């Protein structure tokens, strides 16, 4: 339930709060929900990015990097456990 609320809060913050807070929330949620950073980045760029405002959709790319890092860290932690 907490994960769900944090996920929704991260997406809502792209509309309601300054972007550094969105980025902070995405970093907090990333270890538990690795796909949230890329989703938040994609959502922020959907709202704000145009070709005139920057060469690359910076927030989607940043979210993707954070998602990959989160999956990698989780995979390293998971391989240490047997069964489950």
């Amino acid at each position, binding site marked *: 339930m907490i*994960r*769900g609320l944090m*996920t929704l809060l*991260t*997406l809502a913050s*792209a*509309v*309601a*709060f*300054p*972007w*550094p807070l969105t980025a902070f929330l995405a970093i907090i949620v990333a270890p*538990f*929900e*690795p*796909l*949230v950073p*890329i*989703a*938040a980045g*994609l*959502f*922020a760029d*959907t*709202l*704000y*990015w*145009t*070709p*005139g*405002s*920057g*060469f690359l959709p*910076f*927030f989607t790319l940043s979210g993707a990097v954070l998602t990959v890092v989160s*999956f990698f860290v*989780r*995979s390293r932690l*998971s*391989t240490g456990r*047997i*069964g*489950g």
Partner: protein
Amino acid sequence: MKRISLARRNALLSSADVSWGVGALALALIALLFRLIAPNLFWQATAPAFRVADFLSEKNHAVFSSFGDSAKLAAKNEQLLRENAALANENHALLERNMSIEALARLSSPSIVAGVVARPPASPYDTLVLSRGSDAGVTLGQEAFGEGGVPLGVVSSVLADFSRVTLFTSPNMIVDGWVGQATLPLVVYGAGAGVMRASLVRSAGVVEGDIIFAPGPGKLPIGTVVRVDGDSSSPSVTLQIRPAVNPFSVSWVELRDTGPTFVAGLSWATSTEL
């Protein structure tokens, strides 16, 4: 022979762990498709959410401001009232002068007032989304002015009911302008996060507080030099420039055609998408 059974786990994707993430990604993809297929409808659907966020932000600001020292606030209020009266008089005189100049130059081009739907810092690219589009007469390349007629940026994309202004502080924006009373020419670069920068030779003698001007109808102030950076052995200095109007709090803008001189002095990208 006893077999040890290990539960197979996919470390990357397990349904229990990533369900909220998958939902969020699906939502973001749906929003992206919506924007690509029907951009005008997309902004009509999302604009109310931005307005609610704006309203909540204003309420929060009022609540936090009320914790301030009331005596200090009263003194500040009195000082601001005095300054406001002086500025109103000055503004009136300037308005009269401006009207006579416009009458002489026949520069009375029609202007469009537009509300701001989204602005920095929620918008991370130093752009404004406006609630007026081509149906209201907004066109690409129009200059956006804030309170007091201060230039803020340029219309970089237009839809039927919405448009987007790229601010002078956007990292993609390059403006030819002038600095100080001596009107030394310089190139102003947007640095993002509501800041602009420019480089100039040290011997020009630019100091903190000098005004930066951009072309418009005449020479208009767009910002103030807040810091002069540079090694004393270097022949050039970097100017840190703060915009004359805070883009983080602008709630409306005025859009006007300012002629080919202004557009020629810009380097920026336009888009047919929003």
